[in-house]
């Protein structure tokens, strides 16, 4: 009785090992190295000594953390809403939906760095849009590097909404038709079908996709660095600036900022995963 499940478990473990080992080395190794560096155990010069100094030395950490969270929450929320309705449009299967589907698939392949450069060219003071509309730089609103972080949020929202849409389409495509038709036959009108059929079915993948988008937005630096304001800076930009700083003590500080970013992300993704377990459609 006992040996069968054990052998089963062993076999399953062996089968997934080739996938797990490289991931573990990269993820756990990377995180481990960062934690070790943040605690002063991996200095560039001098002897390693355990200390938490690095966590306290970066100034305006709280402001940066709040800014990072703000950007990530707003852009993820926009991406979730836009992504959901885009997915519904794609699933509807008409011509418009197909075009939107193709555009979304294309948007996902654009690297964020290229996206940021394009958004910058489009929205900056003397950018393409300002020139097309014939508005002089002085009268153009400060969308890029402005106080609202408009360009940064717009870039993330645009790119991540395409990602969210494709994930939802992937899960809905196989099962939506029968449920939707049944509901329609039973007399549910459009609004009710959207609310009681499509949304519950899409919710788990919407949540997962949003969590991934959120984690990405919180951790990536290039968009905020290119399109953001000089001060305050998001955590990721701060970590990069410190890591590239010419002083040798800045590396542990950069690692500490990265660890804080990681904890924030883990906490919020953890909450999302708890929410996922409560969802009916997931079980």
């Amino acid at each position, binding site marked *: 009785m006992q040996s069968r499940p*054990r052998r089963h478990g062993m076999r*399953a473990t062996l089968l997934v090992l080739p996938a797990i080992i490289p991931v573990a080395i990269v993820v756990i190794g990377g995180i481990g190295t960062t934690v070790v560096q943040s605690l002063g155990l*991996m200095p*560039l010069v001098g002897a390693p000594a355990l200390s938490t100094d690095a966590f306290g030395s970066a100034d305006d950490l709280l402001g940066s953390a709040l800014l990072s969270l703000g950007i990530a929450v707003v852009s993820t929320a926009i991406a979730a809403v836009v992504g959901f309705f885009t997915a519904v449009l794609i699933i509807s299967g008409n011509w418009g939906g197909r075009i939107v589907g193709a555009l979304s698939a294309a948007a996902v392949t654009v690297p964020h760095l290229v996206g940021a450069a394009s958004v910058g060219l489009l929205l900056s*003071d003397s950018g393409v849009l300002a020139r097309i509309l014939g508005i002089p730089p002085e009268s153009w609103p400060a969308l890029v590097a402005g106080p609202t972080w408009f360009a940064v949020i717009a870039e993330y929202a645009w790119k991540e909404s395409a990602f969210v849409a494709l994930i939802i389409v992937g899960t809905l495509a196989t099962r939506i038709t029968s449920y939707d038709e049944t509901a329609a036959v039973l007399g549910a009108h459009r609004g009710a079908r959207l609310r009681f059929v499509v949304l519950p079915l899409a919710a788990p993948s919407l949540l997962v996709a949003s969590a991934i988008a959120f984690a990405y937005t919180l951790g990536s630096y290039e968009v905020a660095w290119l399109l953001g304001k000089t001060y305050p800076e998001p955590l990721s930009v701060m970590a990069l600036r410190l890591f590239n700083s010419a002083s040798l003590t800045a590396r542990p500080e950069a690692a500490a900022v990265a660890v804080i970013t990681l904890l924030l992300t883990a906490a919020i993704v953890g909450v999302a995963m708890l929410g996922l377990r409560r969802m009916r459609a997931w079980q």
Partner: protein
Amino acid sequence: MQIWLPFRRAASPTTARRRVLPALATAAVTALALSACSAPTTTPRGPEFFDWADVQIAAEGQTVKLWMWGGDDQGNAYVDDVLAPAAAVQGVTLERVPIADTKDALNRVFTELQAGRNTDGAVDLVWINGDNFRTGKQADAWFCEWTDLLPNMTLVSDSDPLLTEDFGTPVDGCEAPWHKAQFSFVYNEATVPNPPTTIEGILDWAEDNPGRFTYPAAPDFTGSAFLREVLYSVSGGYENVPSVYSDDAFAELSPALYERLDQLAPSLWREGSTYPATSEQLTKLFADGEIDLMMTYGPATLTALVENGTLPETTRVLTVEDGTLGNASFFGIPSNSGNIAGAMVVANEALSVEQQVAKADPAVWGQFTVLDLDVLSADDRALFDALPQSPVVPSFDILSQNANPELSAEWVPALDDGWRTTIAAR
């Protein structure tokens, strides 16, 4: 059989704690394994060659990867089309690795040294100077005492302070000079008919013309040089700022700098609510006509930018009475390079009269030579004299009049941090 137990536990439905434990153990083991191979073993490598012939033999057939900032098309073209063929004649293949920031190369070297990759690093040669050089020197990341072996070092003055010290850090044969640069202010003649003639005058001009001036945010190289220019100006000249950093000097001198910049901020582009992040963004603002006065530490690029229409034809370099900062660029060889001899051959070739003349031509790159014109033969000096003048950039002797020495590298992060917390955060 024991050894399989953790895996079985992980696979079977069990409490969360039991699932977490093996993961934590794996994490700890991986982290330990990684930190074990990262024990700092950065013992500096000393000279390995007796004479130049030795170096040439060792260099034969080596491929040298030169990591340099890739944002300057003329510089890239010079290395690819002029320097690389000359190195090939010496039996060395030169490959240019474009990077966004010199610190990327330094970080790569540091990471390799931390990981114990001590003899076959990815970086063989770096275009470097200033605080990057100092940081690398502190971490023993440079191969040192090699420049005396270069035959072409005899063409370089050994008493030129720009070449014996790099932002106050003694060069000590850890880097070979490449060219000189002069910080320059640039204005549009069409919109600034009567340009100011001093640093203070520039700041006053900015206040009289709100929104038409700004500077890159530190720690951008150019932005942080501008901080030093203003520091000299508000301190009454560079003579009054001790080049060696001390907390006392910083506490005494920096308040006047930040006060002046704070006062200036409302008159800047976008009322100083934000700053261009890089000198390229600053140049773009100037090119788009959003500002009328800008600055650069690489005036060499201006000629081509005006020629290809990026900058207006009325672009002019402003020579200020107080003088501006000057520095020299160098080639450094990381201590973990596997092609040290090849890198030395490239650095030597880059110092030849032929290469320095070619590079100084504004049509090629327009970079100012590091050679001592007084020790050159009459024929060689004639080559430099015959160089065409740029219509935009004055010659080096005009540009470097009253040149100010750079502060020691410790000043740079201190001034940058202070700027970020007082001016950027205002």
